[in-house]
Every structure is written in C-alpha cells, then in structure tokens.
C-alpha cells in the first residue's frame, strides 16, 4: 500500500495547496494548512513501514507543532476579527507596500 499511500498524500497536499490559493476565509486557509500537514504525516507513516519507527516520532512532533500553531493562529484570527469584524483576508492588508 506504500505507493498508494504516498500518492494519496500527494493528492491531499495538492488539494490543500489549491485551497490556500483560492479561498479567502482565513479560517479555511488555516484548515487547508492543517490538511497539508496531515498529508505530510501520511507520507511519514507510510514510509515508516519501510524505514523505521522514527517516522512516527516525527508525526508526533508535527502534531504538537500543529496544535501550537492552531492555538496561536486562531488567537490571532480572533484578535484580527476584533479589529476588522471580518476574517476575509482582503480586509487585512496593512503589510502591503
């Protein structure tokens, strides 16, 4: 099932990539990122079968980082929402030129 798993991981990753590009809702962008992380996790797990248990450890780390990221990211979204009353990314572009 290795090949299939890897290809599946690629599919999920690409969907995530596409999502980041075509959605404007900050929370959904976030979800797309989570999806990409999971796609990578899948690849780790699949390869771990052949290469070793370290793959699992890495997934563990990825998950923790993802959790931390989600917490901080969502907090940021909340404060942004407080400021702009929306989570549409078109509205917060203070950092442009």
């Amino acid at each position, binding site marked *: 099932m290795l090949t299939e798993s890897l290809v599946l991981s690629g599919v999920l990753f690409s969907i995530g*990539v596409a999502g*980041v*590009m*075509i*959605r*404007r809702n*900050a929370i959904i*962008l976030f979800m797309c990122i989570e999806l990409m992380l999971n796609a990578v996790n899948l690849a780790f797990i699949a390869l771990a079968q052949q290469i070793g248990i370290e793959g699992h450890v890495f997934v563990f780390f990825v998950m923790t980082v993802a959790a931390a990221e989600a917490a901080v990211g969502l907090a940021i979204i909340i404060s942004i929402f407080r400021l702009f009353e929306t989570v549409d*990314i*078109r509205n*917060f*572009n*203070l*950092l*442009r*030129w």
Partner: protein
Amino acid sequence: MENFEPTLLGLIVLLPLVGFLINGAVALFTPGNKGVSTWVGPGVVGLAFLIAVVNFIGMFGAELTAPIVRSYWSWMPVGDLQVDAALQLDQLSILMTLIVTGVGFLIHVFSVGYMKGDPGYARYFAFLNLFVFFMLTLVLGANFPVLFVGWEGVGLCSYLLIGFWFRDREKADAGKKAFIVNRIGDFGLLIAMFMIFAHVGTLDFVGVFAAAPETFVYGGAVVTAIALFLFLGAVGKSAQIPLYVWLPDAMAGPTPVSALIHAATMVTAGVYLIARSSVLFALSPTAMMTVAIVGAVTALFAATIGLVQTDIKKVLAYSTVSQLGFMVVGVGVGAYAAGIFHLMTHAFFKALLFMGAGAVIHAMHHAFHETHQDWDAQDMRNMGGLKRFMPKTWIFMWIGTLAIAGVWPLAGFFSKDEIIWMAAAHAQGPFEVVFTLVWVILFIAAMLTAFYMTRLMILTFHGENRSGPGGRHIHEAPAVMWVPLAILAVLSIVGGWINIPRPISATPILGWIPPWHTEWLHYWLAPVTATADNVFRTRVGELLEVGPFGGGEAFWAAVAFMIAMVIIALTTVWLGKQERKPAVETPPYRGFAKVLYDKWYVDEIYDAVIVRPVVNGSRALWRYVDDGIVDRAANGVGSLARGLGWLGSRLQTGNLNVYALAIVAGALLILLTVVGL
C-alpha cells in the same frame, strides 16, 4: 681666507623672535602695558643690529671667499632631500642683515612715537618684531626652503600689519589682497625649488650654485624655467608688473610699517632672491631679458601713476614700485652689485620719505582730530605750507627727495645712475635692442621720479596751508620720531659714497667724494656674484665702455644729474605758482590724468578678468557642479535604489492568496530544478 668665526649668528635671528614672544604675550594678556613693548620692541632689533655690526667688522678684515654656513638642526631629512635649518653668512647676507636690522631699528624707534596712543601698541611691536625675525630668516637662510620660511613669513607679517587696524574693512581687505597676490609669487618660488631639486638634487645655496654651471645647459629650457619661476616669486614679493597691485593697497597699514616692510626691506626680497640666485639667471639670457623688461616697464608704469596721486602715501607707494623696477632691472641686466646698491640706498631714502610722510600724517591726523574735521589726513590737497610747522621734517624730506631724484652727491645719484648705466653697458649679445630700450625707459622713469617727488614736496610743504581750521594745530614731530629721520637723512646723503663708479670718481667735479672706496660694494659682493659674472663674461663678453648713443658712464651720469636738477627747478617754479584748494573743493581729474589717477584701471581690469570670474566660477562650481551634479548623482543613486525598492514593494500586495501563489510557484521552481521535468 682668514679664520673668521661668526659671532652669535643665531642670536641675530633669535632676538626678534624673543621680542615677538614677549610683545605677543603682553598684547594678549596685559594690552595696556606699554613700557615693556617700548623697550623690548626696538631693543631686540637694536641688539641684533649690534651683533650684525660685530660680524660685519669681523668679515671686513677676513676677506671671505666662501659663505659660512651654520646648521642648527636637520629640518626636513627625507631620503636625498636633506634640508637643514641653517643660516648662511656671506657678504650679501650680512649686508642685507645690516639694512634690515639697522633701518628696522630706526623704524622701531620711530614707531614708539608714531603708535603712542594706539590700543594695539604691544601687538604692533609683536608683529613688527616677528617681521624682522622672518626677514632675517629670509636673508640669512642657507637654503631655499629656509629662505621660503622667511619669504612667506614676511608675507604673513605684511598681511597682519597691513590689516593692523582690522576693524576697517578696507584695511583688512588690503591685507588679504597682499597675502593672496604674494602667494602667487610663492607658488612660483615653490615650483622653482621643485625644479632645482629635481635637477640638482639639493636645495642648499652652496650646493646649487656650485653645481649649476655644470648641470644646466647655458640658455637651456630648464634653467630658463627655473629662473622664470624664481622671478615669478620675485615679481610677487617685489611688486612688479603684473603682481604689483597689492603694494599701493598695502599703504593701509601704519606708516612705519609701510616704511619698513613696503619700502625698505620686504619688497626688496625679490631683488635679493635674484641676486642670490644670480648664477641661475646668468645661465639664462632669456630670463634675464624678461627680468629687465619687466623691471623697466614697472619702473615707468608706476612712475606715471605716481605723477597724479593725491594721497601722500600712494605717491610714495608707486614711487616704491617704480624704484623696485630699477632694482629689478639692475639684477636683471647682471649688475647684481648695482641692484643691491640701489636696494640699500633706497632703503635709506625711502624709509626716510615714508617716515617723514608718517610724521606729516601723524601731525595732520592730530590736527584734524583736534578740530573734529572729517578730512583725509593723507591727502596732500589738504596740506600745503607745512614747512612752517614742521621745519625738521621738511628738511629731511627734501634730502630724501633729492636723493631719490638722483641729485649729486646724494645716495640715489650713484645707485640709480649705476643701474641705468649698467643697462646700457649690458646692451650687447642677443638682446642688444631690448637692453637699449630698457636703458631709455629707465632714463624717462628717472625723470618722472624727479617730477613726482618734487610735486609731493611742493604740495605738502610749500605754498599756502589748506588744512582749514586744523592748520593751527599742526606741530613738529617729537624727538623720538625726528631723530631716526635725521639719521636716515645722513645715510641718504653719504650712503652712496661707498660705491662710486670708477669713471665718476675720475671725473673732475662729480668725483669729489672724500673718504670712500671706489666701487667698494662691487669688491665686497664679488665673491657672491663671481660665478654669475664669470658666466656672463665667458658667454657674452666684457661690459661696454661706451653707451648705445655714445658717451661713457660719467657722461650719462652728468646728463641725468642735469636733467634731474632742471626738472626739480621747473617743477618747483611751475607748481609753486598754481592756486590750490582743499580736497573737498577740488574738482576731480579729467581726461588722461584721470586714467593715471585711477591707476590705468588695472585693479578694475583684474577684478573683471580674474577676481570676479574666480569667485563666480567658484560659486557656479559649488551650485551647479558640486550640488548639482556630484551630489545629485550620489543622491540619485540613492533615489534609484529607493525606486527599485518601490517597484519591488508592488509585489507585496497584502493579499494572502497572492503570497500563497508565489510560495507555490517558488516551491515548484525549486522542485523543478531538483527533480527536473
């Protein structure tokens, strides 16, 4: 050579420096303390004079054939260049030292009276002492750089003293002008030094002059260039055309300063330089011709301006320029001894005339001050009939006038006529016509001298007094001022007797001068000028005995004397009859006289042709080149970077989707380069 040891040679130079330090300290910290300056100022110069006299007497008996060089410390030792702080004692330098310290001492004494009551009394003596120090460095220096120290130093003192009353903008301007114009000459001297070092490998007088005849080709381009650059230095310092313009303005300084610096000593430094470097000039006939022409033209040109000036000091100033022209011709035609001779006599009678004028101005100034008259104390139109109030000054100044006009047996007769004659005697070789012309020009200039000096005397001392109410307050100068005048008057009479030309001493009436050696100065200076004389003799030939239009030296001297007497007499009669009014009531000059009065508009021409273009050019360079191009280019680079940054910043749209797209595209690019299509 006898065993002659110079006595306290360094002290001659050092004493005025000490005087400067003491007076300077007084001026800065206790400006009111005049007692110290009164004694220290003239005292140090007097002491230096005494030491110089001792040395002179020693040398007199010793018959030196080579200069005595005393090296004090190694000044600029850099590889081949070994310049010592060294002094050189020889016949020329001791003579100059005597003039500088002797005349200088008298002028210092005179200044005690003249500057009494000036708040800058101590400062004045500090500068004056400093000047003497630098002047002695100039004449005693044993190499070109040490000479240059003195050279620029006297320029500095001249600057400081011309601008002594610096609150007056005109006076400060005059000082500045003197310094800058002098620096043009200094530039020439610098280049000459560089060339000498490049070709001879040393800058010591002894070394250079010994090596010069072998090193340089006679009449070659190199030695001509060196001589001409040296001459540029001399032109600047000795106020020759085209750099004479600073000297008349320099009269803004206190009158004793004019006497000391701008008549007796500093301005003659150029003549000294040429005499000192006689070998180099002798090797280049072209340079000598140039020197002679410039000197002659200056002599005539300045004399014409002197004819109509109304400011007593201006007349004397142009007279000085004219007389300097005579000296320059003297050294230019190869008659070094004659040039130095005239330098010496001129120092006597011009210092006398200036200080006499100073006494007059002093008196006029006080008189006008008493009556609160807002009249020019230096304008001769406001004087007249002063012989009644100032009889001593009147007599002394007449002596000076007769001396400068070349009346036998006064000093000027011998020295000036020797120069005139020498121009004729050198009228041979490749530039015969030129020297003949020079001789004629000098003759005319000498006649003009007799006229304008007589005019000065008539306007100042004779006729009715035109000082208005101030006339009643004019008094004779105090003793401290007239005694130096008296001494100088004696010197102006007998000073010429040391060097009576042989043909004249052989002439019946003119030859009657009791105790003095014939052509003594020639013999005295012979060791210094020997090399140059040799060059001339071998390359061109012996001096002529007969002038271009026939007649020998004695003949032409007699002619000149007659003419001078006639001119003086005629002028006295003619001007004595004229009606005159004070300056305020006199109409301005018209026609050619106005051109002369306005000095041929040379200052205006210089202003338009040189000064203004330089200033405007500077301003344009600053505004348009420095700010406009260079700085704008630098800032333009900055703006360019900013512009590029602006362009790049357009990529920062602030839209996360675009960023995501960019990230993906970038990641794809990297992937592509890693794995390929």
